[in-house]
C-alpha cells in the first residue's frame, strides 16, 4: 500500500513515467496474481499481463485514490476471469486417455502439505478448494486488503452477501483444517488441551 505517496505516483505513471508505473506494479501485482491464481487457476499470469496492459492503456484517464485504483484493477481482473471462463466453456478441453496416467492424483494431500509447511502457494491452493465466489471474496478481503463494501462493488453483491459468503468460506476452511489436524496430530501449533485443530 503506497498511502500518501499514491497520488504522485499515479500522476507520474499517467504521464508515462515507467518508474512510477513500476512502483504501482510492485505494489499491486502480487495480490492481483494471487487473486487470479485462485479465481482462474492456470493462466493467471497471462491474465495478469492482460490486466496490466489494460491499465497501461487507460491509466491516463483514471481518476481516484488508492482504494479506487485497487478496485479498478481487480474489476478489470475479474472481467478477464469471466471472459476466460466463457472461452473455456465454449471450447472445453476434454483430456484424452493418454493423459490419464499423468492426471492421477499425487500422493501429496493439500491439507497435509498446508499442515507441514504453510507456504503462500499452499494456502492459496487451500482457499481455491472453496466455492468460487467464497474463494474470490476471501482473497479480495485477505490478500488485497479490501473492505466488504469495496469487494461488494467488484463482485456485484451487497456488502451483507459478501460478509456471509466470506464467513461461510472461513468456516468451511476451518472445518477442513480441523479434519486435517485430527488426521495429523501435533501440527499447526494446536494441542488437544488448547482446543486447537488437533482436537
Amino acid at each position, binding site marked *: 500500500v503506497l498511502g500518501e505517496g499514491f497520488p504522485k505516483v499515479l500522476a507520474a505513471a499517467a504521464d*508515462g513515467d515507467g518508474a512510477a508505473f513500476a512502483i504501482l*506494479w510492485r505494489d499491486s501485482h502480487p495480490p492481483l496474481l494471487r487473486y487470479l491464481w485462485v479465481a482462474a487457476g492456470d493462466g493467471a499470469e497471462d491474465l495478469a499481463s492482460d490486466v496490466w496492459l489494460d491499465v497501461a492503456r487507460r491509466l491516463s484517464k483514471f481518476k481516484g485514490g488508492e482504494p479506487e485504483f485497487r478496485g479498478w484493477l481487480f474489476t478489470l481482473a475479474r472481467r478477464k476471469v469471466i471472459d476466460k471462463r466463457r472461452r473455456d466453456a465454449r471450447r472445453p478441453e476434454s483430456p484424452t486417455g493418454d493423459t490419464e496416467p499423468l492426471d492421477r492424483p499425487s500422493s501429496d494431500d493439500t491439507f497435509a502439505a498446508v499442515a507441514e509447511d504453510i507456504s503462500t502457494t499452499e*494456502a492459496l491452493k487451500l*482457499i481455491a478448494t472453496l466455492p468460487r465466489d467464497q474463494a474470490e471474496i476471501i482473497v479480495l478481503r485477505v490478500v488485497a486488503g479490501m473492505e466488504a463494501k469495496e469487494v461488494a462493488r467488484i463482485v456485484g453483491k451487497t456488502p451483507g452477501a459478501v460478509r456471509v459468503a466470506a464467513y461461510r468460506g472461513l468456516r468451511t476452511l476451518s472445518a477442513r483444517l480441523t479434519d486435517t489436524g485430527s488426521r495429523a496430530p501435533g501440527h499447526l501449533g494446536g494441542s488437544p488441551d488448547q482446543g486447537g*485443530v488437533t*482436537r
Partner: protein
Amino acid sequence: MTGFDGSPAEMPNVSGHAGWLSPDDATAELLLSGQGADSVVPPRERALALVLAAAARPATPRELCGEQAAVTAFELAVRRSRLRPSVWTRAGAWSVRRPRARRVPALIGGGVLALAALLGGTAAADELPAPLQMMAHHFFDAPAPARAAPRPSVNPGPATRGQRRAGPNISARTARPDAKKSPKGKAKGYAKAASPASTPSSGNGQGNGNGNGSNSGRQGRGQAPREGPHVPRERQETLRPLSPVKTTEVPSARAPQASAPPGPPSRSQARPSARPGTGRARLRR
C-alpha cells in the same frame, strides 16, 4: 435452551462437530481484516489464521520477476497511445470510428433524398421520359406523360360517313390537360375533344367529331376501338355528333392534306382552329 433458541454462533458445540460454525462472525471479521495472526484469535482458529496470513504474505521474488517486462509493455503502450491516441484504446477507437460510421449512412441518406427530390421535381414538371413519367403518375400525382407520338403532319384519310368534322385530330393526339385553354364557345367539337378526358385518345371514333383522327381512317360513328382508353358512357353521349351529315368525298380534298397547306381563310376557318380539315369539312357541307 434448545437448539433453535439462539443464533448458531452462540452454540458451537450443539452439533457435536468441532468446527461447526467456527469461527464466529466476530472472529471471522478479525481474520478477514488481517489480524488473525494476533493472539486475539481463539486458539482453535489459529490454523485458519496461519493459512490466511500465509496467503497474504509479502510478494515473493517469483511473483515480482515480471516487473521489467511489465514496465516495457507500459512504455510501449504509452508511446502508441501518444502516436494514435484515439485508435489505441478501445474507447478511443470508438471515438474515431463512430463519426465515420455515422457519416457514411448520413451521406447515403442525403444522396437518396436529393435524388428523390430531383426526380420528384422533374416528374412534377412533366419532364421525365414517358415510361418514368407514367410510373411517377402511378405512384403520386405527377401529371400523366404526354403522348410521345409524332405530331401528325399528314392529314388523315378521307372523311367517312358519320364523320362530321373531318381533319386530323391534332388536339386529341397532342393535347394535354392544359389544352382547355382554347377559347370557349369556339370549335366546340374540338374543345370537347381536347378535354382532359379524351386527351390520349387517338381518334377514338366515338362519334365525337374527330373520327378521322387516325391515319387509318377506319373509325366510324360510334365505333370505339377496343384498345382505346376508357371513356365514361355519359362522356360518350356528350361527345356524340349532333346530327349525321352527309358528306361528299371530293378527291381533291385529299391531296392537299398531305402537306396541309394553309388554305385561304374561309368562313369556316374563322373559328380559331388550327385544324385545316375542319374548315374544309364545313366547306364541303
